[in-house]
């Protein structure tokens, strides 16, 4: 008999009835939990009384490995953090090491990084909407459309970096290799073809009454709670808080691009989180068009950049980027040796997961599944 919850939170909106509490364990290999993630849900009648997330099933000791290997050897491991957006993981790590060792980055490499980062954001948001609809029972049709577009972008990544998902493409002071011939035109073509896909996606879903009925008013995340819990990314913006690291830090060359930051309209429920991501996809397309248009010629890797036995001077650095799921940060302490003394990651999925219970109280089980889907977590990043 598991220990009963010490103290039950205030009742959710649904009226309490004096049924007995029913313990339901969802996961770890449950059809709708985005990987190995388990939730112990205590049900009172139909509504959720208590929800304890249990994760750690995918822990691979990433940080200890990185502290044992050289700085260069950690890059392939960052691909496997958030295995959907490997390029942005590389970028966050490489940004931090450049800040630690003070390495300059040529302009062409910065443009390539922006292009590759925004492409990653595009198919990550498309996949999130697809999986959310599949949790809602739309039997994979939106997911198939999202995957169709994702394939085009992954082919571009394979032509560029050699591998579809585990790109291992960024290096300290630039990128590993230059754009192959004709890649730029292909990329412009894929970006242009994304607009009709988005209209098709919106036509299929955004006005769908069943989708609106299932998601509006469900899993509301008040802005105050979002800020206190450290939620970042589309989830935070859906709650109406204007915080986008691309605008705040202006890292890389984001200040050269004109793009807007969409905010939630009704205090951050599941529908807002879905719509903010759709609108963000349109903004990413705008950035892509500008970046692909004015990418300069020139060197793609800083000539003085040292690939092997990089030994940054002793010190510490915290670099962060606006990853598709939120603020992905790396905190490195160097003691002058070939390997980082301390290598810490701030995973956006894990931090966004902490508010799962507050959003699920009082809702039915069917909503818990959707709320989890709307937070958009990837277990590789949560467990590291």
């Amino acid at each position, binding site marked *: 008999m598991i220990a009963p919850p010490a103290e039950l939170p205030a009742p959710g909106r649904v009226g309490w009835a004096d049924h007995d509490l029913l313990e339901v364990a969802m996961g770890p290999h449950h059809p709708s939990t985005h990987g190995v993630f388990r939730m112990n849900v205590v049900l009172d009648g139909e509504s959720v009384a208590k929800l304890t997330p249990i994760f750690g099933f995918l822990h691979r000791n990433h940080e200890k490995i990185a502290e044992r290997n050289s700085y260069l050897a950690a*890059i392939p491991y960052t691909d496997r953090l958030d295995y959907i957006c490997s390029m942005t993981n590389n970028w966050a790590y490489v940004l931090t090491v450049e800040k630690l060792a003070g390495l300059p980055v040529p302009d062409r490499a910065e443009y390539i990084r922006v292009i590759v980062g925004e492409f990653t954001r595009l198919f990550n948001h498309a996949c999130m909407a697809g999986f959310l609809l599949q949790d809602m029972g739309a039997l994979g049709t939106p997911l198939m459309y999202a995957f169709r577009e994702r394939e085009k972008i992954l082919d571009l990544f394979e032509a560029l970096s050699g*591998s579809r998902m585990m790109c291992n493409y960024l290096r300290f002071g630039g990128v590993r290799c230059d754009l192959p011939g004709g890649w730029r035109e292909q990329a412009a073509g894929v970006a242009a073809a994304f607009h009709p896909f988005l209209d098709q996606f919106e036509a299929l879903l955004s006005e769908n009454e069943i989708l609106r009925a299932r998601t509006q008013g469900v899993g509301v995340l008040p802005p105050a709670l979002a800020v206190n819990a450290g939620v970042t990314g589309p989830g935070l913006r859906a709650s109406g808080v204007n915080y986008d690291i691309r605008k705040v830090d202006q890292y890389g060359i984001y200040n050269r691009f004109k793009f807007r930051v969409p905010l939630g309209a009704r205090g951050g429920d599941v529908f807002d989180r879905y719509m903010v991501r759709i609108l963000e996809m349109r903004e990413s397309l705008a950035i892509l068009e500008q970046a692909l248009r004015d990418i300069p010629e020139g060197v793609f890797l800083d000539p003085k950049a040292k690939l092997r036995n990089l030994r940054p001077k002793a010190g510490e650095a915290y670099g962060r980027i606006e990853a598709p799921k939120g603020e992905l940060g790396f905190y490195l302490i160097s003691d002058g040796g070939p390997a980082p003394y301390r290598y810490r990651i701030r995973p956006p999925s894990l931090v966004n997961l902490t508010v799962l219970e507050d959003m699920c109280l009082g809702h039915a089980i069917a909503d818990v599944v959707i709320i989890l889907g709307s937070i958009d977590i990837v277990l590789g990043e949560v467990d590291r």
Partner: protein
Amino acid sequence: MLGRGILRGLIETGRNFCGSYYDPARLTTVQYPEEKLPPQENARTLPFLVYDGQDPLAGLRCTACTICEQECPAHCIRIVKDTVKKPDYLGKMQFHPKVFDIDAMVCMSCGVCVEVCPFDSIKMDRVFELAQDRRALVLHKMNLAKSNQYYREIHPTEAAAVDAARDEEQRKARAKKAAAPAILTP
């Protein structure tokens, strides 16, 4: 009016259903065993050792400098240096690996070894149908060695650049050698 969104959704899937019969963009499945997508030029799966000339063992470019063994993130390369030295393409006397094993189970095909190798002796292969019935997954020197022609086939632009650089060095070395004896004789 209630139901308009659902109708638009139905029209969308209906258009996809009809489109899949005539519009290639709406039917994207590649029937794998029969049809195969043309492999990308930069694709990388498992590493292989390049050798010049005909004899795989004699022509190996690898000089057992073990840089790749140190830099490999997954530590899946094991090299045992040979005792006797042999001349390389520049005529310099170099060691050669007696044993060069890559554990294919551990290798995550990241390509770091290719970047750090100073002698262009290890490159990334493109073959991805690696299923086999035996459990022999530690690739030895014999299975790893592949000819330069094969390398030029799978990565044409990259191989051309590498060969041009090597020919350039060979020409410079020969020119230096031709000039060097002049100094010795007086």
